[in-house]
């Protein structure tokens, strides 16, 4: 029986996928009932799956199962790790639930502050250690002569590439510099002419970057469209 159901799962899933795909693609003719019916189905399925996953994978297997194993097997090997990692998380998690009550919400503020502080520290430390320092070092080494290619044609490309990256980085940072020199009272505040030109160049680099990002988004969408059209055709061929 289960084998029979397993064999029917793929065709049923294919049919459901076909119908839902057609319903979403119906938005081509504008907002309609089919599109508005398909969107809640996707949101509900994703939310339900996420809830089950958290209950099953996190609360059950990461919090409760270790306790049951210690109780059933009597092994205290992992008890210290469990007590130092899971118990504080459980206490803070229960403490955090006071935020659900407006009357007790302020009691959950320390937990929220703890999570926010730890999260901010983690992100800042990771950004400094994993992005800022490595990227600054990489930008500095772009025109390092020690890394230059030996052949002339490659050397020209290497130099131009390094120069564009260096100028683009510098001018983009200058674009976000909004400081001005202190002026006397009554004198109109103006930006430096040199900084103005460099800022304009940085603005051009930003425009190109945003264009590339938009192109990447469009390519991703086009790839998804091609995949759906291919799926529809495969489904049609499969059943007809």
């Amino acid at each position, binding site marked *: 029986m289960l084998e029979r159901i397993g064999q029917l799962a793929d065709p049923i899933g294919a049919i459901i996928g076909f119908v839902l795909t057609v319903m979403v693609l119906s938005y081509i003719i504008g907002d309609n009932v089919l599109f508005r019916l398909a969107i809640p189905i996707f949101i509900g399925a994703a939310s339900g799956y996420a809830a089950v996953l958290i209950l099953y994978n996190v609360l059950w297997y990461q919090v409760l199962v270790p306790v049951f194993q210690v109780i059933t097997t009597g092994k205290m090997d992992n008890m210290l790790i469990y007590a130092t990692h899971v118990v504080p998380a459980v206490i803070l998690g229960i403490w955090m639930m006071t935020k659900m009550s407006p009357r007790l919400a302020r009691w959950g503020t320390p937990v929220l502050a703890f999570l926010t502080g730890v999260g901010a520290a983690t992100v800042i430390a990771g950004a400094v250690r994993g992005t800022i320092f*490595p990227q600054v070092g990489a930008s500095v080494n772009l025109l390092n002569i020690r890394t230059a290619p030996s052949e002339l044609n490659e050397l020209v490309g290497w130099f131009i590439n390094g120069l564009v990256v260096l100028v683009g980085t510098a001018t983009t940072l200058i674009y976000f510099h909004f400081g001005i020199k202190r002026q006397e009272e009554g004198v109109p505040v103006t930006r430096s002419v040199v900084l103005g030109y460099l800022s304009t160049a940085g603005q051009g680099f930003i425009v190109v970057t945003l264009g590339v990002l938009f192109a990447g988004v469009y390519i991703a969408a086009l790839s998804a469209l091609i995949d759906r059209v291919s799926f529809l055709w495969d489904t049609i061929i499969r059943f007809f």
Partner: protein
Amino acid sequence: MTDVICPLCGKPNPPDREECLYCQAPLKASGFVAPSEPGDEENQLLPPSGETGEAEEQTSQPAEASSLEQAIPDWLKATEANFLGQSESEQEKPGTDLVSEQIDSLLNQPSTPDSTNEPAIDDDWLASLLEETGIGESSATTSQEESSEGQEDTFEADKTEPFSEELAQEEPPASADQAEKPEWLTNLEATSPIKLDRVLPASEPDGQSTGVVDTGEETGSGEMEIPEWIAKSGSEVSPPSDKEAESQIAPAELPSWLEALRPDEGVSPTGPLEDLSAADIVTAGPLVGLRGVISAHPSAIRAHKPPTYSIKLRVTEEQRARVEMMEALLADEQKPKPLPAQPVISSRNIFRLVIVVVLILPIAWMIITGSQRTPAPQPGNIPGVVDFTQQVQTLPIGAPVLLAFDYEAGFSGEMNLAISTVINQLIIKNAYMAIVTTTPAGPALAESIMRRADTGLEGKPETYYTDLGYIPGGTIGLLGLANSPKTVLPYSLDGNNVWAVAPLNAISSIKDFSAVIVMTNDPDIARSWIEQVSPQLQVDGTPLLIVTSSQAEPLIRPYYEATPSQVQGLVAGFVGGLAFSRTVGNIQQNGTWDAFSIGITVSVLIILIGSIIAVVLKMLALGKLKEN
């Protein structure tokens, strides 16, 4: 219990009191009983006329007169003494006024001492009338005898009890000789102004005048009995006058300017007295019996129920209309307004359908026909693919590899080709894959990919991969995974303790994996993996490989192209996946690459044509504006 109200201070006193407890004013003569009922308040404040007459009769009795004399305050006695003394001193002066003469007539011998038998009637017509009737002598003599007997007591009592003139005129005291007189004569004597002006001052009541009418007996006796206190005060030597005192002091020499400011001595310093004879008498309250004062009537201080004022806002019609308009506006703001229904067939919808048809028809045609005319991309032209392939190919057999399924289902069409190729290569390398995810949909996608990949392979899936599930906590969870993956994910999704068996039993940190492959479409998730995990991987040289989407490639490539690189291999988008699949010998594409190529071409043409049309239309519009 009724209290007697003092006529002077208005305070209640016990009924047995003869004088006020507060001001020592006599209560029996002119006091009144406090009202027992509010309705009879005004009637009881003033004694009735009959009671007034009785009180007047009582004042003529010597016993009660002595008691009243004791009730006179000292200040009033001193005032009477000074007044009488001054009257006697001024009697010697020429030019005394009429009042002084009248007082003298009362205190001294009458002005007609010689004619004792002569009636004290000045009018000739009245004298002749009395002679004709024959009752003039007897009546006048009788009245003089009785009046002379009671004159002293009556005079003192009258000075302490200033009855009102109206009451005295209405209720004259009944005497013995008046009973003998005809009624018309009694009334004539009482109302005659001539007698009153001669006998009594204007301020004394008429009752007294009737008692002091000059008679032949009084004038015949030659001297009237004067009270002892009057005689004493009259015999006292008058104090020196002001002129005598001034003559003893040397006159000062005043400057001229002060003389000019000096007031005229001939002008009286006091103003004229107001005539209060016509003023009303206070009939209620503490000032009862006084004339010419403002009445403190109880009704003036009576507590009334406060009037009720309407709280209705007084606005004009214009203001009311404006308020209604404002309320209507506020009510409309809260109501959602339905969007205007757009027609199904419009230029916008037609233009949209045209673009869809132009874009989808070539794509569908390429997929339907399975076209493979367009040459596939070369791996060497796609940055990162070669390095990615090399990293996968150099993995040791049976090495543990960490796979992170962090992409969303919507990007599976773009990324599935590369991911499927990677999984197949890892299966070929007999690598043990530990699957994790930081997105809730990751386990489902991983299950779908692994089920599709193991089709046709022999052996159980758990022999080459395990799904550790969801990493909670986002960035913090990634940092914990990098430090101790066993602590963060102690069990697999199926509940097995995979960290106790090979090959994961040798894993204590993330750098113990042979490679970490992250599959994500989100540049933020990719950056989190790079920032939190890459520093630990670089310690032992463990490669970090990323399979990503085309939209995240521009943000991830700098990490790959950096020196030293933080990402050792990169496969981005459908193009990267196709190139990577070609490097491992998979050239089957089912027309998708041609569809992708023609789709990009059509899209570029649409954008280019649309831009040209927009520029032309704008130029035409500018030309029309210039012509206008």
